[in-house]
């Protein structure tokens, strides 16, 4: 029975079914199934989608559809993990967002999905995220990695501002910072003191692992 519930949860993510994913996640809680097992199958599902995307067999709408379904189930499962006092295994915790003034969501969502697929716990703060919100997110989730995106040259300087704010808050050395987006180059990343830059979402997975020494 447990296996069936977990299989259905996995299937809902692979079939981009947000409502189904949420309702199977609730069933996990209701049936007292080990929530870390639920996280495992969700990771397998999102990895399957991520792998398909890396091979060019699946596309952005699939990646985002699966990410949405995953996001619908994740808070329910995480609540349960907290309740039972279990520990979630992961490569590390990421806080990700598109910087203030910039509402480009797609590249950031791709990276978030692929990092999740790779085994990171990803907290997506969304778009138009202020430096203060990033700081808050890093504290709240006890993040290992901060990932920032800006697509426009006009919003790129916001990344510098976030890093400066982290320094003021004495948080800079607590997180590894990776940056990306259409407006970012390696030179820019170096100039603002980021720890890494990657032009592609698939490359970002490798970069994140390198940053946490995995």
């Amino acid at each position, binding site marked *: 029975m447990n296996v069936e519930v977990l299989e259905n949860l996995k299937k809902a993510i692979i079939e981009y079914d947000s409502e189904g994913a949420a309702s199977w996640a609730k069933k996990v809680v209701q049936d007292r199934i080990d929530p870390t097992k639920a996280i495992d199958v969700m990771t397998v599902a999102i990895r399957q989608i991520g792998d398909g995307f890396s091979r060019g067999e699946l596309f952005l*709408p699939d990646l985002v559809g699966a990410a949405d379904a995953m996001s619908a189930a994740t808070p329910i499962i995480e609540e349960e993990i907290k309740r039972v006092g279990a520990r979630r295994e992961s490569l590390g915790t990421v806080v990700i967002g598109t910087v203030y003034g910039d*509402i480009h969501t797609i590249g950031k969502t791709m990276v978030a999905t692929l990092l999740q697929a790779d085994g990171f716990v990803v907290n997506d703060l969304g*778009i138009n995220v202020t430096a203060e919100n990033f700081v808050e997110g890093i504290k709240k989730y006890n993040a290992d990695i901060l990932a920032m995106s800006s697509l426009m040259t006009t919003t790129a300087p916001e990344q510098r501002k976030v890093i400066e704010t982290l320094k003021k808050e004495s948080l800079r050395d607590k997180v590894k910072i990776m940056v990306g987006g259409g407006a970012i180059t390696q030179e820019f990343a170096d100039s603002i003191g980021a720890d890494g830059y990657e*032009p*592609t979402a698939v490359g970002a997975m490798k970069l994140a692992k390198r940053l946490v020494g995995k």
Partner: protein
Amino acid sequence: MALKGFTRNFKPLEILTEEQVEAIHRGTLEVLWVTGVRVEHERALKLFEKNGCKVDYDEMRVRIPPALVEECIRKAPSSFHAEARDGKKSLMLGDNNFYFGGAPGLQSVDLDTWEPRVATRKENYDSVTVLDALPNVHFLCPYTPYFGFEGVPPCMAMLESQAARIRNSTKCICVGFSNDSEVFAIKMAQALGIEIMGTCATAPPLAMYRDAAESLFRFAEAGFPLRILSGQVMGGTAPATIAGGVITNNAEVITGLVLAQLIRPGMRVLVKDFSHPMNMNTGAPGFGSIVACLHNAASNQIFRKYGVPIDNATCYPNSKMPDYQCGYEKALRVLVAGLSGANLLLLHGSVHGELTYHSVQAILDDDLAGMVGRFMEGIEVNNETLAVDLIEEVGPIPGYFLNKEHTRKWWKLEQFVPKVADSLTYPEWMNTGKKSCLDYAKERMEEILTTHQPIPLTPSQEEDLERILEEARRYYKERGLISEEEMATYRESMKSPNYPYE
């Protein structure tokens, strides 16, 4: 069921007014009746005469009365089925259907220097394999891919080329004619139980020489469909004006159409516009010329009025390599031909005019065919595609469409994704070796050649094919068209353990 190909789902381009169409039609009728056409074939002349044409046997000239022209145009089917070796790949030519075919090339090209050179037997067979694999190739024209290849005497080129197309492709094929080659071509098809499409090429201005008329008779008697073309050069063998060129091309192909309908009423014919302005510096046909596009558009409008399936086998560039010029020449020719109602377009593989061909070019052209084909399909408008409910559901920012089921379903139906185009971002492009579409096309050619297996002939079909080829070799040898030396080289070329494939 015929192969789907593409469908033009909107009104065709009308470059001429109704009055202009009538003026060209009247001009055509006048030329056919007053000037007439030279037809160097006694049996044809007698048949014309019997059906009310004025025939001058000394001049071999036939003058066709307007009523007979119009009657024969009505008799020609407005659309027809052309059979392929694999029945699922047969074509339904006519109406709004739109198909692509491989173009011919005299020689191959070197991919580094772009200089022409004779193709090898292996290259010829491999090139057919590539055409068999490409999804947007529906038809293989005569001489496709090569007019001949190493070791083969010229008089056998047509038949060896046909054998290669039959062996390595199950798609619809067409054959040419030269020195009775069509006799053996028809024999091959009949022995194998397949259909082939014939060709009758008139000789502009206003003539049909003996071999062309004979080919027409032979295909009519075999009950096979036929393509009729002229191949005029405006300013040389046709008037320099587009309107005048449309009249002479019309008069020439309609002479063939009338003869076909007199021999076999209801015979399946495809009429072709293959007209180019003369390059007044070199005398060569202006293959990639925009004037040829105008000629296609006007001819196609007239042919549509006649209700006869249309072939615009004219996507040959002047460029010598797949560069910017090649791209615009091909793209404009294909798009205009499609917009104006062509049913068949020979595009794939031509590197320069009809002089050179390469599989890498055919692979690049397959993307162009897919793009233009997609354009022809037009825009689907219904409640689901209008998406008003979805737009309401998503609303303004931060809503977006990428995560919607509607997007997952429709983007694949709406978009055409080229297979070998460079579509990377700068960083991806720089990190993957700065590849161009040409690099991708080379890779795809290798992939097709290692993975695609054309459906082979049965052993008895293979035996029949080789027997008829051998019969043709003896026929041409006896007629002195193959010298002793040529025959020795030819026999030597057949000794490979992988014959006929290399």
